[in-house]
C-alpha cells in the first residue's frame, strides 16, 4: 500500500531500480548461480522443458538455458555500461569544450555530429562488426562511434546556457580558470540531464547489442548472449518455446528497468510534471 502512496516518479525509480538490480545481481553472481556450465552439452536431454534441475529448461544442444541467461546478462551489461561510460566521457569532454569555447571548436564539433547522426547508428555498428569480425571490443567500439554524439549535443547546449549564469560569472570574476568553471561550477548542474540520457541510452544499447548478437554479428559465437540464444530458439519454437521465451523476457526486463528508471529520473528532476 505504501507503494501506491508514493510520488509517481519515486515509484518509477523504485520499480526500474529493482529490475536493474536483479539483473546486475544475476550478472555479478553468474558463476555462483548457474549450476551448469553454459556450454556443456547433453544431447539426450535436448529440448527438455523447465524443471527443478533446469529452471529455464534445455536448448537444442542440451545446454542449460538458465546458465546461458545469467551469463548473457553479464555480456549485455558489460557491453552496455562500457559503451555508455566511454560515450558519456567523450561527449562530456567534447560538448564542454564546444559549448564553453564556442567559435571554430563549436562549429567543427557540431558539423561532425551532424555528419555522424546522418548515418543510422545501428547500421554503422552492423557494418563495422561485419568487416572487423565479431568480438566484444569491436562491438563496443562500433557502438561508441555514434552514441557519443547524443551526450555531446546535450552537454554543449547546457554549457552554452549555463556559462552566462550569475554563479558562473561570479566564479569567473573571482579568477576561476575556464577548467575550474566548467568542472566545479557547470558540471554539477549537468548530472541530472546526463543521467537521464544515460539511462535511456543503456536501454537502447542493450536492444542494439542483442539485435546484433541475434544476427550473429555481436560477440563470438562461443560467448552466451541473449540475442544468440533467442535466434537459436526461434527455429525450435514448436518443440521448445522456453528457449526463446526466457532470454526474450530477460532482455525485456532489463530494458524496461532502464526505461522506467529514466522516466522516473526525468519526472523527479522536472517538478512541474509531478505537480500535475
Amino acid at each position, binding site marked *: 500500500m505504501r507503494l501506491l502512496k508514493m510520488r509517481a516518479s519515486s515509484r518509477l525509480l523504485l520499480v526500474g531500480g529493482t529490475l536493474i538490480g536483479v539483473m546486475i545481481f544475476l550478472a555479478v553472481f553468474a558463476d555462483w548461480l548457474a549450476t551448469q556450465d553454459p556450454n556443456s552439452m547433453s544431447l539426450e536431454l535436448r529440448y527438455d522443458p523447465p524443471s527443478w534441475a533446469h529452471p529455464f529448461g534445455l536448448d537444442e544442444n542440451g545446454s542449460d538455458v538458465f546458465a546461458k541467461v545469467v551469463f548473457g546478462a553479464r555480456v549485455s551489461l558489460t557491453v552496455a555500461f562500457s559503451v555508455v561510460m566511454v560515450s558519456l566521457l567523450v561527449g562530456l569532454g567534447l560538448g564542454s569544450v564546444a559549448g564553453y569555447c564556442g567559435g571554430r571548436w563549436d562549429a567543427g564539433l557540431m558539423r561532425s555530429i551532424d*555528419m555522424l547522426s546522418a548515418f543510422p547508428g*545501428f547500421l554503422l555498428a552492423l557494418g563495422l562488426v561485419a568487416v572487423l569480425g565479431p568480438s566484444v571490443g569491436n562491438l563496443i567500439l562500433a557502438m561508441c562511434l555514434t552514441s557519443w554524439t547524443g551526450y555531446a549535443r546535450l552537454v554543449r547546449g547546457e554549457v552554452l546556457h549555463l556559462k552566462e549564469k550569475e554563479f558562473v560569472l561570479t566564479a569567473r570574476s573571482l579568477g576561476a580558470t575556464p577548467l575550474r568553471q566548467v568542472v566545479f561550477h557547470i558540471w554539477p548542474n549537468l548530472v541530472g540531464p546526463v543521467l537521464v540520457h544515460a539511462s535511456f541510452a543503456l536501454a537502447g544499447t542493450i536492444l542494439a547489442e542483442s539485435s546484433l548478437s541475434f544476427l550473429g554479428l555481436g560477440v563470438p559465437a562461443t560467448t552466451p548472449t541473449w540475442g544468440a540464444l533467442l535466434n537459436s530458439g526461434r527455429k525450435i*519454437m514448436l518443440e521448445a518455446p522456453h528457449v526463446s521465451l526466457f532470454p526474450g523476457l530477460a532482455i*525485456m526486463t532489463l530494458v524496461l528497468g532502464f526505461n522506467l528508471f529514466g522516466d522516473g529520473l526525468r519526472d523527479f528532476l522536472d517538478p512541474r510534471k509531478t505537480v500535475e
Partner: protein
Amino acid sequence: MISFFTRRVIATVPVVLGVCTLTFMMLHFIPGDPVDIMLGEQATVVDKDALRRELGLDQPLHVQYAKFLTNLASFDFGRSLYSKRSVGSELAERIPATVELGLAAVALALMVGLGLGVIAAIRQNTWLDHLVLAGGILGISLPGFFLAPLLVWIFALHLDWLPVSEHGSLAHLILPSVSLALPFSAILVRMTRASMLEVLREDFIRVARAKGLSAMKIYSKHALRNALTPIITLVGLQLGALLTGAVVTETIFDWPGVGTLLYQAIQSRDYPVVQGCILFISLTYVLVNLLTDVAYAVANPKVRLS
C-alpha cells in the same frame, strides 16, 4: 521558404559525401587482406589477382576512391561476388518488398500511435490512460526480434490463423508489419500523449471551450493540429530506426527485401553487396531526414524564418 529549402539541401551535400566515404572505407577496415577473406585462404593466386583487379584493390587509394565516386554517380555499385550480377539490379529487385513492409508498418504505427495517444490524453489519469501508458513503456522495451517469434508462435503455429515467412498476400504482411510497427507505435503513443496534454492546457483551448465548440471539434481541429508539430520530427527520426529495424524483421520472416539481402551478403562475405545495401539504407535515411526537416518547416513558420 525557397531559401530555407536550398540551404537545407546544400547542407545535405557534405553529409552524403561523408556517408559515401564511410561506406568506401568499410572494405579497407577489414583486418588483413580483404581478398583472402572473401575467397578463403585456399583460393588460387590467379583467382585472387582477378578479384583484386575487379575490385580495383591493386590501385592506389585515391584512385580507388575517385573511381568509387564516379561509379556511384552513374548508379554503378559494383558486382556481387557470388551471383555475378550488378549490385544495382540486386537492390532494385529487393526494394519494393522493403518499401511495402515499411509503408505498412508506418501506416499501422501512425494509426495506433496517434489514436491511442490522443485518447489517453483526453482521458488523462483514468484507467484507460494508465493502460495505454503501461503498454507504451512495455512496447519500447520489447525487442522486435522477440515479439516476432512470439507472434509467429501464437498466431501461426498454435492458432494457425496467419501464414509465416512468405510474401505476396495481405495475410503475409500482417505479422512482419506488426512486429516492425510495435516499437514505433509505442514511442508515438508516449509522444502524442505528452504533446496533446501540453496543448490542451493552452489558453486557446479554453477559449474554444468557452465559445461552446463541441469536444470533437476542439480535439481534432484545435488541439491535435498543434500537437502534431513536434511529432513530425519524431516520425522522421523513427523512420530511420524503422529502416534498420527492418534488417532484423526481414531476416526473421525471410522477407525478400533489402534487409535480408544485407544479412545474406554479410553471412557470405559478399562485400560489394554489403556496401551497396548500407549505402542504399543510409542514403534513404538522409533523404528521409531532409524531407522531415522540410515538412517541419512547412508546418512551423518559426523554423524557416530564423
